[in-house]
C-alpha cells in the first residue's frame, strides 16, 4: 500500500558528472517496490511546490536506491543531502515493468543516461529470476555515464564520443546486435524523449515488444490532478489520454503518441 513516510538518507554519492546515487532508508515503502515504480520527494519551504518524482533504482526490504541527475533547483538540493538527514517521500507509485518470463525469451534493457535508474532495479529482479539481460547504457561521454560495473547482465556501454565502451548511439548499437536476441524479446526502455521517439518511428525487429518508462511534469503522482497526461494512439487506452503517474509510467511503446 502506498504511503507517505519519512526516509533517512544513508548515502548520497556522486557517481558521474552531475549524477548521484542515493540510498534511503524507508522500510514502510521499500519492501513493496517493484521495478518501474517511482517515489515522490517532498521539499519543505521552497517556492517550488511540486514534489519531484524519481524512479526506484533498486530496493531491499528497508532501503530504496535512487540514481538522479542534477538539472534544477530541487535536484541541486538533493545533491546536498547528507547521511542521517530526513526527508519526506511517498510511494511506491505507478505501474511496473512487467517481467513476463513465461512469454519472452530474451530481455533487453535500454537506458539513456540517468534513464538507467529504473532499469537497474529491473535488472536486479531479472537476475533474481535467473535471467541475464542485455543492459545497454548510453551517454554522451564517459564522464556522464552513470554506471560502469555489472557482472549480472550483458552490460553494453556506449558513448557518443567513444570515450568508454562502444562509440555511437545506444539505440543504434542495440539494433546492430538484434540478431543475437532470442525471440520473442522484451525490451524495456528509459531515456530522453528523443530516444523513445526514435524507437517509436523506426521499424523494429519482429517479435519484439517495447515498453517505455515516460516522464511528464507531475503535481500529485497519485492520479488526483490529471496533470500528467500523455496522448495515446489506440491500444489499451483507446486513444484517450492516459495518466503517466497512475496508468504509467510504463507504457507499451505502441500505445504512446510522441509529440515533436
Amino acid at each position, binding site marked *: 500500500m502506498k504511503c507517505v513516510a519519512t526516509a533517512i538518507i544513508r548515502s548520497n554519492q556522486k557517481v558521474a558528472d552531475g549524477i548521484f546515487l542515493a540510498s534511503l532508508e524507508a522500510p514502510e515503502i521499500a519492501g513493496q517496490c517493484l521495478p518501474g515504480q517511482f517515489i515522490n520527494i517532498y521539499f519543505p519551504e521552497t517556492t517550488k*511546490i511540486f514534489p519531484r518524482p524519481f524512479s526506484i533504482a533498486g530496493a531491499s526490504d528497508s532501503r530504496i536506491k535512487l540514481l538522479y541527475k542534477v538539472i534544477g533547483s530541487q535536484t541541486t538540493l538533493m545533491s546536498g543531502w547528507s547521511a542521517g538527514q530526513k526527508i519526506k517521500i511517498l510511494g511506491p507509485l505507478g505501474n511496473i515493468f512487467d517481467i513476463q518470463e513465461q512469454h519472452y525469451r530474451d530481455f533487453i534493457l535500454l537506458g539513456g543516461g540517468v534513464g538507467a535508474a529504473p532499469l537497474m532495479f529491473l535488472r536486479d529482479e531479472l537476475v533474481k529470476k535467473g535471467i541475464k539481460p542485455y543492459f545497454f547504457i548510453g551517454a554522451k561521454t564517459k564522464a556522464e555515464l552513470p554506471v560502469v560495473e555489472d557482472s549480472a547482465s550483458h552490460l553494453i556501454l556506449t558513448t557518443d564520443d567513444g570515450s568508454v565502451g562502444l562509440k555511437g548511439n545506444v539505440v543504434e548499437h542495440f539494433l546492430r546486435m538484434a540478431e543475437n536476441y532470442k525471440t520473442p524479446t522484451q525490451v524495456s526502455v528509459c531515456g530522453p524523449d528523443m530516444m523513445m521517439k526514435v524507437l517509436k518511428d523506426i521499424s523494429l525487429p519482429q517479435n519484439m515488444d517495447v515498453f517505455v518508462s515516460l516522464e511528464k511534469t507531475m503535481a500529485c503522482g497519485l492520479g488526483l*490532478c490529471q496533470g500528467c497526461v500523455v496522448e495515446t494512439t489506440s491500444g489499451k487506452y483507446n486513444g484517450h*489520454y492516459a495518466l503517466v503517474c497512475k496508468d504509467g509510467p510504463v507504457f507499451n511503446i505502441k500505445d504512446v503518441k510522441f509529440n515533436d
Partner: protein
Amino acid sequence: MIDLSINLGKGLILDNPILTASGTFGYGDEIAEVVDVNCFGGIVTKSLSLEPRIGNPPPRIVETAAGMINSIGLANIGLDAFLKEKVPYLRELKSRVFVNIAARSEEEFCDVIKVLDREKWIAGYEINVSCPNVKEGGIAFGTNPNVLRRLTRKLRESTDRFLIIKLSPNVTDIARMAEIVQECNADAVSMINTLYGAAIDIQTRKPKINTVIGGLSGPAIKPVALAHIIKARKVIDIPIIGIGGISAGADVIEFMLAGATAVQLGTVNFFNPGAIYEILDFIEHYMDQHRLKSLNEIIGQAQV
C-alpha cells in the same frame, strides 16, 4: 474530545470544517490508500458534466512561485460513469459528499441535477460557475452579474438540496456576485476558484499551458482569497466556504476569522497529501489554547 463540527445551515453539520477542493482530490478513491478520506468533514468531487470529457491536451500543469497553473479542461468521467463507478465508494463515506457540477449551459446544469437528486446520500452541490457559457459567447457564468443571477435562480428552482455557488475571483466586484447568489437563495458560496495565470517557455516560446491562460492556485493566491472573503462577508450572511492556498492549520483559522464557515484544501493535496492530519491537530491545539468550545466562536471574528 474537542468538538470541531460546524453547521452550514439547513440541517447540514460537518464533523469538521475541512473539505477537499474540487479537482484536487479526484473522487477520493485514488488517495484512499494514503489518507483516511473520512478525516475530512466533506469531500467535493471533481467537476462533473453530463457527458464525459477528455479534457485539454498537455501540457496541463506548470509550477509557479508558491503556486501552479492548471488547465485540465474539466476532464471527467461524465454522469453515467460517475453513477456506476464512483457512487458505490462515495455513498459509504462518513464524510459528507458534495458533487461539483460544471456545464456549458443552464440546461446541462439542470439535467445533471435532475439525475443526482435521486441520490439521497449526496449532501449538496457545488456549482462551478467559472466554466464558459456557450450561449453567452463563452464567457464564464460567474463573471457577469446577470448571467450568474439567472443561473442561480434556475438552479434554486430545480433542487432543494444544499446549493453552493463557487465564485470566480476574476471579477471587479466579488461582493456583488456574492450578493446575487444570496438574493437567489443559494445556501452558500464557496470562494475562490483559480485566478487567471499564464507562463511561457523562453526557449521554445510556447506557452507552458496548452490553453495559454490557465488557473492559478496554491499558497501564492491565499491573500487574494482572504481579501475576497472579507469583502463578501460584509454583504452576505449565508455561509462562505473558503478556498485558496490553504496549506496549514493556521491558514484555516485565518480563513475562518475572515468569515469562512468551512474551508477546502486544494493544491496542498499535491504537495502535502497528509496535510489534513497536521491541520486537524493544529486546530485542536488552537482551540485548546484559546479556550474555544466551538469553531463558531471564531467565524468572522477578525477585526476587519
